[in-house]
């Protein structure tokens, strides 16, 4: 029973790690950002799962009923903030990618590294 209560977390960890793997193993700059997005979204899922109560309902108060069990609203608030932070990071990252493409002509990390290495420090 104990394990059954935890299996959810393991799936979230699997998802996180897939995102993390994309992030650190792929050399394409856009792909890395996609990995970051998946990584972060999976962390969000993990947070939201903390706030869930079995049989609970969305934390919107129902007038006059005292028997309703509401899920925990605090993780929701935190994740709302985190989603916004995530999209902000994505926007800046993508504009960096656009500039890198213009400056280097490629968005492959390996090629950019090689080009960098052939230039002397300024």
């Amino acid at each position, binding site marked *: 029973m104990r394990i059954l209560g935890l299996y959810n977390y393991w799936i979230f960890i699997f998802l996180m790690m897939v995102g993390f793997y994309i992030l650190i193993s792929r050399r394409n700059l856009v792909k890395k950002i996609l990995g970051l997005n998946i990584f972060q979204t999976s962390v969000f899922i993990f947070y939201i799962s903390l706030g869930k109560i079995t049989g609970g309902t*969305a934390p*919107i108060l129902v007038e006059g009923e005292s028997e309703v069990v509401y899920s925990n609203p605090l993780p929701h608030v935190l994740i*709302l903030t985190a989603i*916004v932070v995530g999209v902000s990071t994505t*926007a800046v990252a*993508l*504009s960096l990618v*656009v500039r890198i493409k213009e400056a280097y002509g490629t968005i492959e990390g390996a090629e950019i590294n090689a080009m960098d290495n052939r230039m002397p420090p300024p």
Partner: protein
Amino acid sequence: MSDQVILRVAVKIIVPMILLYALYVQFHGDFGPGGGFQAGVIFAAGIILYGLVFGLRRAQKVFPTWVARLMAASGVLLYAGVGIASLLLGGRYLDYSVLAHDPHHGQHYGILLVELGVMITVCGVMITIFYFFAARGRETL
């Protein structure tokens, strides 16, 4: 592509609905899911859709870049300004209870203003970002 009659007609019908829906989300946020952030994104999505179909120039006629930029900045200022106002009225920073004679109303006003600030900023920012990306593309082509 200049001859996309179907798309243009469809977008002309859909965009006002999207904008209206954004306002609904904004002001219904107290009672159901939604709020400033979602509303801002949806509003921006409406403008972006218009821009995608009718082109950047026409979108900028409807919603100039400087307006977007002004909105992006003024939303933050509005939010922080509500805090300063509550501070001047004798409360803690962002303590809405002092905004009106009755704490309940104060909280309502505070949340309304603050959510408005969020919506204005988010909408302005998303549209600004889209404009900058799209303008970059136009130069490339």
